[in-house]
């Protein structure tokens, strides 16, 4: 369905799509009205970025709604269930730090004008997401006893999923931010989960896709 040359793009497209869905689950439930709007806006940007790449890779609806979990290549960290606000923010921060390396590379080093166009726009949007998540990390980590505990739990839960998105540049962004947030310094060399490159996922992706794909699968080809 997706050609071998598309391999480097698919983890980015699927990562944006799956994380967009996770963020959209916060709609009407975020801690404040402003945060509800912020997470909704970020989800919308990610959805637009995913669509831009999926359109390059083939039929976007086919790819988004009619692939099964084992055909998705999103980093596993994107599919983990919502968790609390600390988990949501720290995950968004980790993924935005990854995309902060991915998008400029695609904007500068891609033959395809379409991919470059998606990436050029995404560079600016991601900078905004990174700023938003990055501004919450120290406020939560270094906030109250409760918020510190929740951020520490989130860090413990997320750290084993960094393998697919981490690079030297990623650690250079993440580690100082964790330090500033008074969070325990995690071990760079600690064990990390395998990637989804061979189609293996956590059990959570299937449920997410069931939710995301049910309408399109019940009414194939439906138009608004």
């Amino acid at each position, binding site marked *: 369905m997706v050609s071998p040359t598309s391999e480097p793009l698919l983890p980015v497209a699927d990562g944006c799509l799956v994380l967009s869905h996770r963020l959209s689950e916060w709609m009407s439930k975020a801690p404040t009205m402003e945060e509800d709007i912020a997470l909704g806006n970020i989800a919308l940007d*990610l959805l637009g970025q995913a*669509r831009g790449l999926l359109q390059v890779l083939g039929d976007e609806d086919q790819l988004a709604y009619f692939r099964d979990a084992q055909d998705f290549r999103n980093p596993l960290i994107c599919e983990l269930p919502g968790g609390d606000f600390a988990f949501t923010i720290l995950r968004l921060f980790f993924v935005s730090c990854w995309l902060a390396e991915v998008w400029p590379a695609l904007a500068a080093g891609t033959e395809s004008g379409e991919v470059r166009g998606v990436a050029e726009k995404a560079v600016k949007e991601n900078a905004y997401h990174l700023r938003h998540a990055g501004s919450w990390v120290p406020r939560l980590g270094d906030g109250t006893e409760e918020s510190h505990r929740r951020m520490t739990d989130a860090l413990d839960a997320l750290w084993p999923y960094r393998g697919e998105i981490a690079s030297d540049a990623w650690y250079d962004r993440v580690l100082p931010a964790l330090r500033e947030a008074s969070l325990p310094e995690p071990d760079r060399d600690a064990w990390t989960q395998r990637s989804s490159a061979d189609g293996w996922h956590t059990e959570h992706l299937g449920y997410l896709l069931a939710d995301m794909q049910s309408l399109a699968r019940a009414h194939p080809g439906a138009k608004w």
Partner: protein
Amino acid sequence: MVTSTARAWDVLEAVPDPEIPVLSVVDLGIVRDVAESAGGRRVMVTLTPTYSGCPATEVIMRDVRSALESSYDEVEVRTQLSPAWTTDWMRPAAREKLRGFGIAPPEGRHTLPLLDVGAPASCPQCGSREVEEIAAFGSTPCKALWRCTSCREPFDYFKRH
């Protein structure tokens, strides 16, 4: 001299942004190119969307098409993503229209890496320079929510992007 695409541009001047109807698609700076062919019976318009996930984009494409269909036999609307749209492409006159509509226009020129999205120069309601950010994200992807500390009115800021 009237250029051959003047008719199409006139039509586009009257196509509003669905979220910010005081601005036309030309004011927004998203019309990259207009080309006529077949002796003026066919027109092709190239648009560059503002934000990746902006739901207004598809409405705008539809509106542009239907507006042009009254003047041309055949209309093609294409999107071009690269180079990415920036608020630098907005017309200077658009700034005053935004202010009149209660939205503070973007301040400063776009730079990469995007370190900040600027700040409103003044409150679009009372003109005070005493303003503060409420939230970095607003009712549409292009706006942030600010507040005037003089008149206490909240207002939208069209982000520099």
